[in-house]
């Protein structure tokens, strides 16, 4: 499933890298707020669901070739985070939903194919 379909289905709001949404394939998901956990256990092409908003999340997503980052619970990414994400080509999405709900919806969506 491409990122654009996932965003539309779940009603997420995209904050940057719109040009990449159609061509970015989401191959799975990973949820976590500990950066070392995500570094170690996420896989390329997965969408990362987190409550962290500072710019170091962009480095993690970029280094692991993740499909994008969903920031949950109505949190706003810092300005520097969006700037860095635009530069590195890491799509960032936001939602008011809690992490549990986003994870459940993404899981169901990806399982259904």
């Amino acid at each position: 499933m491409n990122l654009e379909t996932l965003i539309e289905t779940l009603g997420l709001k995209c904050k940057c890298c719109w040009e990449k949404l159609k061509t970015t394939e989401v191959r799975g998901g990973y949820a976590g707020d500990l950066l070392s956990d995500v570094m170690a256990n996420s896989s390329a092409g997965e969408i990362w669901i987190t409550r962290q908003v500072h710019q170091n999340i962009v480095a993690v997503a970029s280094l692991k070739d993740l499909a994008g980052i969903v920031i949950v619970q109505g949190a706003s990414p810092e300005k520097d985070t969006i700037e860095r994400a635009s530069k590195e080509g890491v799509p960032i999405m936001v939602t008011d939903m809690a992490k549990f709900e986003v994870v459940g919806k993404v899981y169901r969506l990806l399982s259904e194919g």
Partner: protein
Amino acid sequence: METRKKLLSDEDFPESLEGIYRIQGRDFVDAGIISSEVKKSLQGKGIPESIIRRIAVITFEAEINIISYAEQGTIQLFIEPDAIIIEANDIGPGIEDIDLALQEGYSTADDSIRELGFGAGMGLSNIKKFSDIFELTSDVGQGTRLKSIVKLNG
């Protein structure tokens, strides 16, 4: 000073040295930039993506450790015919008990580090997990040296 002198000797600049990167302690704003540089310099050289991602994890954790705990440090990248080598040297407090520091979950990070999602006590164990060969030595009050080797032929 010993560490700095050692870095500048000819012995430490073999042909396989691809890059040497300086890192300033406590500079969380730039965290990850060195790891991105290292990743970029490995791309386009026929090195498998899976190997590059392992190096990315190793470099990121080494970079974060220097930023979190040391005054300053360097990361060196070597590309050998059969392996990629990452060396991280820092001038800093050092590690008193290396076995304890390697235990997953053990951390001396303060709250400011933890708030950023670091300091979970996974950094060193991640580096070890993603390395084929891992060496960690330290002089308390002086600094820490880390060497990680990832073999190219599995």
